[in-house]
């Protein structure tokens, strides 16, 4: 895969150690969860992984609930073209 942005950074000076990768990634994860963890000190990698898993699960559940809600709403009334324009204009 050719990546336009340097996503997989293979350092030319030598392979990046696993430890370095873990540190960078843990920081990345913590940034994503800063709203949830509050001001926790960066815990162990296990905790980060655990939190990530539960966060993804909760997001999945939220998407499922929203799907349910949307299906009920679709039942009542379809998405008219007016509403479609309204939705788009809302994201100004």
């Amino acid at each position, binding site marked *: 895969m050719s990546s336009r*942005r340097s996503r997989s950074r293979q350092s030319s000076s030598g392979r990046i150690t696993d430890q370095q990768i*873990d540190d*960078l990634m843990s920081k990345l994860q913590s940034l994503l969860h800063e709203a949830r963890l509050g001001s926790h000190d960066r815990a162990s990698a296990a905790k980060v*992984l655990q939190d990530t898993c539960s966060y*993804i699960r909760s997001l999945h559940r939220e998407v499922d609930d929203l799907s349910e809600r949307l299906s009920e709403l679709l039942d009542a009334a379809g998405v008219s073209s007016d509403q479609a*324009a309204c*939705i788009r204009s809302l994201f100004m």
Partner: protein
Amino acid sequence: LGFPLRNNPFPSIDYRPLQNLSHFSLSWIEFGEAIWSGWRSRWFVRFVMAISNAERETAAAKEGGGERKRKRGAEKPLAKWRTQGEQKTYSSKLVEALRRVRRSSPAASTDHSRSRAIRAVADRALALAARGQTRWSRAILSGRTLKLRVRALARAGGPKSLGGVATVFASRPAEKTKPQALERKARVLGRLVPGCRKLPLATILEEASDYIAALEMQVRAMSTIANILSAAGSQPM
């Protein structure tokens, strides 16, 4: 699919390319496979250029160039999920798909089947928004096509269709020094993110970050649409 855009927020931007999506919206599967077969394919390039360029520039200008300069590398791809342009693109696709779902199941079939259809459609739209740059998005697009077949294959042992491509980049040596508990959690995470089983930990984490950011955008977009629909429902236009 002609939306009369009376309140065009960006008068200088031509929304007609959006309506060209009607070609693609006829078959998500074909479009997904077009991406799968080659990101540089004609359709994919046209899709990207037509949809994202104008809106992205506007959105990027809003976000501020400073943010791009400061946060380089890994964070730059994540910020894209928070731009208004992305959310707009995704919402438009979702709305079109929702209309199709409604048309295809007029008599209220059981809520579960329809909500599952909506979930599938939302996930596929999300994967398309990723523009084929992440494994999870490619897995979703290919997974939906082969859903029935892959299930049987997976039980037989070895989802070659998904795993075969996913392991192309798993060329890093195995981590022997990791404790078992960490490995186990990493595997769990790999199962949660589509298309990330049996990948090295670093890759899984990278995919998971992007996946989480994308999911957050999905939740925002879907809840907004739901709010609009429920509000509009109480006041029939």
